[in-house]
């Protein structure tokens, strides 16, 4: 069970990498601002399910938590993942290593937020790119 989850994670990571290479090193694919690849879509769903907007704002512009539009310009993918997994409890950022949805969709979440930060993906509801 655990192993298959890990493999799935790797698979998504690889898929993300390929998509990224295909689109000028961007980890997401997007059309019309609101149609995105499957992994990025799942990333947005993860963002929504874990209620990230309660701290970071519905448009990632920052509320009690920092603006992710800014943070994603600074953080490396590795730093991003570490922050998600370990949290920053003293600042109010939870550790999401206990969430299956986050661990399985870490790359998609990164892709989604990167797309938001780049201004390529619109805020709000997304659809799958066909």
């Amino acid at each position, binding site marked *: 069970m655990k192993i298959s989850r890990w493999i799935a994670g790797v698979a998504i990571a690889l898929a993300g990498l390929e998509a990224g290479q295909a689109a000028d090193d961007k980890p997401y694919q997007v059309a019309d601002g609101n149609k995105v690849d499957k992994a990025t879509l799942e990333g947005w769903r993860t963002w929504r*399910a874990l209620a990230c907007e*309660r*701290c970071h704002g519905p448009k990632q512009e920052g509320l009690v938590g920092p603006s992710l539009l800014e943070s994603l310009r600074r953080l490396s993918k590795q730093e991003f993942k570490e922050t998600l997994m370990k949290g920053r409890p003293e*600042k*109010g950022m*939870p550790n999401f290593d206990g*969430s299956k949805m986050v661990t399985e969709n870490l790359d998609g979440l990164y892709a989604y937020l990167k797309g938001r930060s780049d201004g390529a993906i619109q805020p709000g509801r997304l659809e799958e790119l066909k």
Partner: protein
Amino acid sequence: MATKLSYTLGALVGCTLASGALANGDVIKQTQNSSQWAMQAGNMQNQRYSSLKQITKDNVKDLRVAWTFSTGVLRGHEGGPLVIGEMLYIHSPFPNKVFAIGLADQEIKWKYEPKQDPTVIPVMCCDTVNRGLAYAEGKIFLQQADTTLVALDAKSGKELWKVKNGDPKKGETNTNAPHIFKDKVITGISGGEFGVRGFVAAYDINTGKQVWKAYSTGPDNEMLMDPDKTMTWTDGKMAPVGKDSSIKTWQGDQWKIGGGTTWGWYSYDPKLNLMYYGSGNPSTWNPVQRPGDNKWSMTIWARDVDTGQTKWVYQMTPHDEWDFDGVNEMILADGVNVKGKPRNVLVHFDRNGFAYTMDRATGELLVAQKYDPKVNWATGVDMKSGRPQVVKQFSTQAQGADVNTKGICPAALGTKDQQPAAFNPANKLFYVPTNHVCMDYEPFKVEYTAGQPYVGATLSMYPAPGSHGGMGNFIVWDAGAGKIVQSKSEKFSVWSGALVTAGGVACYGTLEGYVKCVDANDINKELYKFKTPSGIIGNLNTWQYKGKQYIGVLSGIGGWAGIGMAAGLEKDTDGLGAVGGYKELNKYTQLGGVLTVFSLP
């Protein structure tokens, strides 16, 4: 002088301790001395009324700041100061500091700062409010964020006992003030957005030993409910709830993560020996995922204080589809005229936009009317079944998951949230701080993981359309007739607890940071206004010291109003949303944490 007085107090406490039966008398006696403010709501009935009358509608314009005090914390400051004898006790949000301040010289007599694991902060996402302290028999009670309940020596600040009330690893935290009824300290739990199973618990004030604990959902014995004796409004009369009244309204064992948390303001009727409180939303916010009435979330509860047994219940919002928590304060008032008869009632201004008037002894539903004309999710409450008549267009269940149901009034934070109303015994009317906000609500499927958010809906909030453009009203309510008597519009939600006094003034705070006092007989006559250092979500309390009446309030923007609410500042769907109501708060206020105390010159 100070020493002498506290000695006398000490001796009194000694006597009370010696005979347990008198324990009940202490807090009530303290609250009957109008020079003090001995409970967060001023009295057991949750009335937020003071018989002090030095400050009147004629001289309130001359109020000035007597002194101020910074808590050193920049977060949402809810609750207010307690004043007992020579001392004022004030708390802060996380890390939940407690200060005992001498009224004579404003010196910090003692300070207490608990050590709490910071991992509790994210579980409180997004604000770490605390609604204040409680006092009884020479002890100060603090309900920490991490659920630790502490008793401190009121004179020295020394820890007397502490007990763990919940588990933050499961998303259980505390924001509520503890309530002292008889010889028990009663507390609840927060975490409705983390799939917590709500409960209230009673601890012995002298030892911290748990006396009883009662859940909001689940098997009858765990809710302390008697299928034959616990009553509820059924077909126009009171009838027993019957066996498994909660479990059979949930799919499978969803009741185990079913919410119904209990972070509001409780009240107590000493004659009936009943305590009253409300339970919150069922988890998750996605109604499609949890079929059934989800009892007893969204419910008014009456329990025997000694045993915890449920005398009666009334569910206001069966199968919640909007996050209309039922936790708001339960105000007890006598002689309220209902259809020509004076009744001893419980009055509750629910998040769902209806104000309920109940016979507090029996639990009969007397009145249920909208206290904001914009409320649209239900046409009314059917007085026979007691159920709201839901409008399909605004039913997020009927519209379904992954559909954005638009234009629901009120928004999830309710026509009123926890900000408590006041009752004026002089005219038997209620002074109610309200929100005037509507929302779009899109539920979606979520999985439960212990300690992780379990919300399942995306919301967008904005000022009530087709109205005055503001997001709040301060209203006067007739609970017997179920009618708004007067309404004063406010730019932002009125998120501060109101105060009404025998001097004929009603006072409240605003999110911009103003303290406002109005004529209690004509609230549109604004008599006094002062800008405190930050937005106000605290409650106004009053006391008298050395012949002078004071009014005190905490400033410190935060809570849902100041932070979560900002989430609704623009409608995503609008693209360039120009609504921007709450965004404008930035123009008026920044974070803060200050107690401001007023008096006449």
